[in-house]
């Protein structure tokens, strides 16, 4: 199964050409959701910073939302470039890229979850294609976070020696 692994301290992500193409399409969907003010996933990608205080929430959004969106788009662009440049199924990621990918995968999964009608912890996508896609993205992100944790634990041990 595709996913991330660690080999001699390096993080590797295995994605065949079909999976890279699929992921590229999802990055475009997430980009659209960040830009389109009418997209229902946008409120989840750029949430309110206050609950129960509309004025404070509006002011917080005024000062932070453009910046949050710009950072998310920038990370998506970086992941897109790495995917586009990949010529083999095994993609090595440096630590910074792996960290950015983990963050982008949250945003992508947020958009897929919104499309699939997932609102609570117990919801699963009714559509079998979306269910498979959502499960695959979850596995990819989980394995990537595990890989990052493993590399960092090793790094901390190394520094103590």
């Amino acid at each position: 199964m595709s996913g991330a692994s660690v080999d001699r301290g390096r993080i590797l992500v295995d994605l065949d050409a079909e999976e890279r193409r699929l992921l590229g399409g999802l990055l475009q969907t997430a980009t659209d959701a960040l830009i389109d003010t009418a997209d229902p996933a946008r409120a989840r990608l750029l949430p309110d910073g206050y609950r129960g205080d509309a004025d404070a929430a509006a002011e917080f959004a005024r000062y932070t939302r453009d910046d949050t969106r710009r950072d998310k788009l920038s990370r998506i662009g970086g992941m897109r470039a790495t995917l586009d440049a990949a010529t083999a199924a095994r993609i090595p990621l440096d630590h910074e890229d792996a960290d950015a990918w983990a963050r982008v995968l949250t945003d992508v999964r947020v958009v897929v979850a919104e499309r699939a009608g997932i609102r609570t912890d117990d919801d699963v996508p009714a559509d079998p294609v979306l269910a498979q896609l959502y499960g695959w993205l979850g596995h990819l992100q989980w394995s990537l976070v595990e890989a990052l944790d493993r590399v960092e634990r090793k790094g901390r041990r190394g520094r103590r020696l």
Partner: protein
Amino acid sequence: MSSDRGTGRGVLEEELTDLRAAPDVPWLTIVWNDPVNLMNYVARVFREYFGYPQHEADRLMLLVHHEGKAVVASGPREEMEHHVHSMHGYGLWATVARFDA
């Protein structure tokens, strides 16, 4: 949060009143549960961003998961807004709140 591959550890009993917040720092950063974020990712964000040791990051992550929310920081309002801004960058649902709210 999504517990598809959760650690399966038991429910922690901490109450929201059991906070590190001191009464003289009335602003809080609250992280809310959401159905998307993975447990290992949320714990990682708490370690990476706030610098919590692993056991504390895991404790807060499980509090979010089981109780629906957790206070992850307290202090001046501007600082809490900065934290919430950062949490949104990580894709976590976070809000600023007054301690007595």
